[in-house]
């Protein structure tokens, strides 16, 4: 089999909002208080199964939350297929900063069509009872920055309780793999070759080419 094609997803947002925990919950289905601040960035891949049984490989990049590390974005954001903006529903500043994170991301990742670049918003830590950011506020942010076809969906999640984490990443996977372009048979397995919306626009081929997902 050819090397599996992978969709690159970048998690960004202020320090301490739970980017690492969200990823850990998705990958390992568990939460621990014993985690440390992220310095630099790294990725873990995760296979996500969509409603129709299709499987998509997500390469999920976790990044440092302190603003001064955002200058490394040139290296870590390039080639991204989607971006997850994370804030803490109990901390208004982290929500207010999403705007800045989004702008900086788009500047450094420089996709061809920034307004249509796949984004989602996750408000984390809904298990705590000190919420200060309402769903309406998050929705308003998302509406402001949604494009013509790219609609930003807002999720409220708890990495601790495992609420809505998978749903959010499944949504991302669906967002970047909307069209089935071609069908191939590879051995006994069915291989669906997909193109992400971004790649359809950009026809960028050097890194990933198409997204190939093993079905069945």
């Amino acid at each position, binding site marked *: 089999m050819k090397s599996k094609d992978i969709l*690159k997803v970048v998690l960004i947002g202020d320090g*301490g909002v739970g980017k690492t925990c969200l990823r850990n919950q998705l990958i390992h289905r568990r939460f621990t208080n014993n985690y*440390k601040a*992220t*310095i630099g*960035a790294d990725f873990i891949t995760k296979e996500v199964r969509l409603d129709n049984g299709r499987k998509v490989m997500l390469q999920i990049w976790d990044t440092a939350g302190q603003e001064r590390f955002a200058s*490394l974005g040139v*290296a870590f954001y390039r080639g991204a297929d989607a971006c997850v903006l994370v804030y803490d529903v109990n901390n208004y500043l982290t929500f207010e900063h999403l705007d800045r994170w989004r702008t900086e991301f788009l500047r450094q990742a420089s996709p061809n069509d920034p307004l249509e670049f796949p984004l989602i918003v996750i408000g984390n830590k809904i298990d705590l009872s000190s919420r200060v950011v309402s769903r309406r506020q998050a929705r308003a942010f998302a509406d402001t920055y949604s494009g013509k076809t790219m609609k930003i969906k807002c999720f409220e999640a708890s990495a601790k309780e495992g609420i809505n984490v998978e749903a959010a990443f499944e949504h991302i996977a669906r967002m970047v793999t909307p069209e089935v372009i071609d069908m191939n048979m590879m051995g006994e397995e069915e291989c669906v070759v997909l193109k992400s919306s971004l790649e359809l626009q950009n026809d960028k081929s050097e890194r990933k080419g198409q997204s190939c997902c093993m079905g069945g």
Partner: protein
Amino acid sequence: MPFSHTKLLRKRTSGISHSSNETKETAELQRRIHMINNAIARKDIAELRKLAVTGPGLVNDGLRRLAWPLLLRCEKGGEVREADEHSDEAQAKLDVERSFVYLPKGTRTTAKKQYQRDLQEVIACVLRRHLDLHYYQGFHDICSVLLIVLGKQLAIAAAENIAMFLLRDAMLDSLEPILRQLMLLDTILQFEDPQIHKFMTESNILPYFGLSWVITWCSHDIKDVGKVARLFDFFISSNPLMSVYLAARLVISRRQELLMLERDNASIHTFLSKFPQNIDIDDIIAKTQGLYNKYPPAVLQKLSGDPLDETSCVNTYKRHWSSLKSNAPVDYSLADLILSIPQTRKPVRDISEVR
């Protein structure tokens, strides 16, 4: 297995003995301990530096508690003073809440909480003393190690001097100066291991995989506290660029595995950014020192064609820090001045004075 005296002496240190002749090794270690004690008694900083960068370094935390304050010029310790809050304390707090992850199993929660309170104080004190310092995620890791080995009072003064003279390039108004240090990793590889350099260049790898090693002296990445302390012996006794040489050496030490990887930027970055936990620290330190001697900072900067600023702590190390006489008070005025001016990009004037 019979009880090993050598192991007892090196309790809480890292190195693994490969010597078949343990008696000889024990005798050597005894001799080293004797020399360290003598150097401490004489306040012989030059001798302590030599011991810190060779063999098993300063051997154990008992000796470190006496030697580090001499090496870091902080014998008097620092006190907690009332002062205006620094704007980065909130970020530090977020990181402190996630600190001391690698404490030995069985450490009580209350002890961990106390460490965290002390850590917040250490960081706040340093920042409040020099309001132009910028905190970065990872400085808290450095301070945790100081706190464990030295206790709060000494850790405050030690952290202050590390911030001002050894890691200042990470604490200016942007990370750019420390990133420029990190870029020199590329030059080291270019001259030391062209094959790896070619592989990395073709795979479009930037040296950012080594960032946390450089800004936390590996304390963010190594789980074994003994190994971290051994590395700190080395770094507090060396030019600030030493951590970049170490990063280069770590890449070279894994060259076989590295060269077998697919040329995929993301996987290579992630492979390289994982610190090899089982590495023999004494051995890697010796090899790193070798690299440093082969391409000292002045030579390396010249080779790179893109020298660091003259205000880089790499280039002020000798003038502002390592040449200080043992009884001379630490003078912060020039470091404070450098912190207060926006970053300029003046290359070093006289490259010969760097070492």
